[in-house]
């Protein structure tokens, strides 16, 4: 796994600002992208992901800030001189050219010889498993096939960075999953830096080396997928990446590495990254639904009444009512459930000391 810390950054973003009237599409973004990294920009709609990607590509000019490619300032370089490959949600194939024509377009611009072009086109078609489609027109291809061709076209001229703006979101679920594997595989084979934009957290978690979470044009948190999932900094990150229960708690006392907390009339310990808090501090805790165990009455610490259940095959989701916590969302693996929860019935529930994460205040 690659992190920017260990490698020379291929691209550096410094103080990137872009305002549209009152809207702050980018509000001071600093980011280093490592050579060969698969970096995902993740955020809700309108968080500034596309604006950042388009600015990197050179289509949107920044109000302030700079981009450096391997140390060289490229802030004012026009897009055709940056040599970044791009893949869009809408494929954007040239409708008047065949598949081979599309893929050879950047090579002809670079004045490759005919033999080189033919060889490279074949190579790229093989890369995306479209060997037999060279002479088709784009409108004779399905969405998934068009996106494969767009990918081959963007990679054909061996760009240093590939920019992808929600490339899979127009495809159906099954195809999307297949292409996620293929994209990951391509990235591993080619060792090209990928900057990938998506609003789909599952996509981000499954594909990325590192994830950048954006909101309101600002970076909320950067980290490895499991880091972000298990140690979210803010309520926004904990809520956006997966589901979370939030508990407002008071720190009663510090016990070595753990905090003795009180919330909803219950006392429990919280271990982990909580070193900066002391007695009488108020904290917000995030608790993943899958970290909560349920059992027959008396087997766990807390007691709740089942408000709602939802059976999902591999998992079962429950909402429990607890007089202090309010509604608590639980996601339990079906095969390990020792009780059959009935709506209105009582169950007991609990969690390990390291299940809760102490969040920083949201800005």
């Amino acid at each position, binding site marked *: 796994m690659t992190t920017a810390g260990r490698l020379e950054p291929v691209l550096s973003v410094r103080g990137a600002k872009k305002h549209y009237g009152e809207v702050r599409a980018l509000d001071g973004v600093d980011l280093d992208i490592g050579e060969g990294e698969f970096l995902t920009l993740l955020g809700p709609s309108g968080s500034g992901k596309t604006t950042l990607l388009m600015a990197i*590509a*050179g*289509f949107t000019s920044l109000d302030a800030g700079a981009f450096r490619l391997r140390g060289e300032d490229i802030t004012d370089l*026009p*897009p*055709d*001189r*940056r*040599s*970044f*490959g*791009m893949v*869009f949600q*809408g494929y*954007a*194939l*040239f*409708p*008047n050219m065949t598949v081979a024509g599309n893929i050879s*377009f*950047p090579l002809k*611009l*670079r004045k490759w010889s005919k033999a080189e072009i033919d060889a490279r086109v074949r190579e790229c078609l093989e890369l995306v498993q479209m060997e037999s489609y060279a002479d088709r*027109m784009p*409108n004779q291809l399905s969405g998934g096939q068009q996106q494969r061709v*767009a990918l081959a*076209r*963007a990679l054909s*001229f061996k760009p240093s960075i590939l*920019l992808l703006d929600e490339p899979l979101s127009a495809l159906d679920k099954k195809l999307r999953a297949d292409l996620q594997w293929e994209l990951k595989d391509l990235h591993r084979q080619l060792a090209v830096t990928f900057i990938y934009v998506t609003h789909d957290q599952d996509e981000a978690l499954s594909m990325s080396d590192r994830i950048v979470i954006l909101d309101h044009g600002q970076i909320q948190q950067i980290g490895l997928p499991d880091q972000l999932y298990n140690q979210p900094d803010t309520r926004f990150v904990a809520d956006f990446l997966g589901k979370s229960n939030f508990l407002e708690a008071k720190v009663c006392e510090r016990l070595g590495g753990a905090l003795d907390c009180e919330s909803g009339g219950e006392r429990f310990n919280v271990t982990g990254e909580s070193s900066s808090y002391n007695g009488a501090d108020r904290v917000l805790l995030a608790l993943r639904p899958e970290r909560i165990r349920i059992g027959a009455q008396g087997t766990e610490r807390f007691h709740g009444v089942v408000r709602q259940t939802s059976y999902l095959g591999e998992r079962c989701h429950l909402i429990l009512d607890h007089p202090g916590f309010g509604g608590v969302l639980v996601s339990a693996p079906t095969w390990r459930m020792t009780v059959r929860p009935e709506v209105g019935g009582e169950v007991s529930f609990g969690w390990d000391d390291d299940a809760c994460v102490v969040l920083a205040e949201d800005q």
Partner: protein
Amino acid sequence: MMRQKTTFQLLMQTGAWVVLAFLLLPMLVVLPVSLTPNEYISLPSDGFSLKHYQNYFTDPEWLSATWTSIVIALSVAVIATVLGTAFSVGCWLLSDFWSTVARWVLIVPILVPPVVQALGFYRFWVKLGLIDSMTGVILAHTLLALPYVSIAVFAALANLDRRIVQAARSLGASVWRTVIAVIVPAARPGMIAGAVFAFIVSFDEIVGVLFITVRSVQTLPKMIWQGINESIDPTIAAVATVLTVVTILIMVAVTWRWKARP
């Protein structure tokens, strides 16, 4: 089983046929007249004759006027298509407030009465010394044809994904190469339709020609108009029939070509 037609459908269909008949009516008059054996405009009473067609195709004056009209219309088609395409592609690329304003301004000539336009041409062309010259007519007709070309090209570009431009640029194409390699090919159906429109607009335009030409430029519509005023020669009907048939053939050819595309 016959499907029962609603009153609405019946009315619409009858209406469509009536309109079609109305549009074809002039043709139904001109065609028989052109075949009359008489030397004056009349319906053929005893037998048909092609001698008026023969007259048209041999008379040097008619042939010269035809040639003049064709040269003018072809020039107009070429110039208006080049200018109209450049204009539309530019507006499409910018697609900001002022390009939208510019599009509307360019369409205004369609709304202005032809007589008013002709008067305008006359006043200006006198100043510019373009009266009674081929250049003057070509220029005037180009201005009249431009809106049609730009509308047709815009229609062709309406469905073009804007990200295609970004894709081309990211692949290394300059703005200019992007226009040549990607946008113009996408605009081609509109350019062809626009060129045909421009040709037809110029080929049968008469009001402007009457205002800005005297003797040295003689176009076909003007000669027909003068023929009706000065004589009762049925050759006019023969010419009119030929014109209509040629126009229909062009339209059919264009439509057919369009359908044949994948």
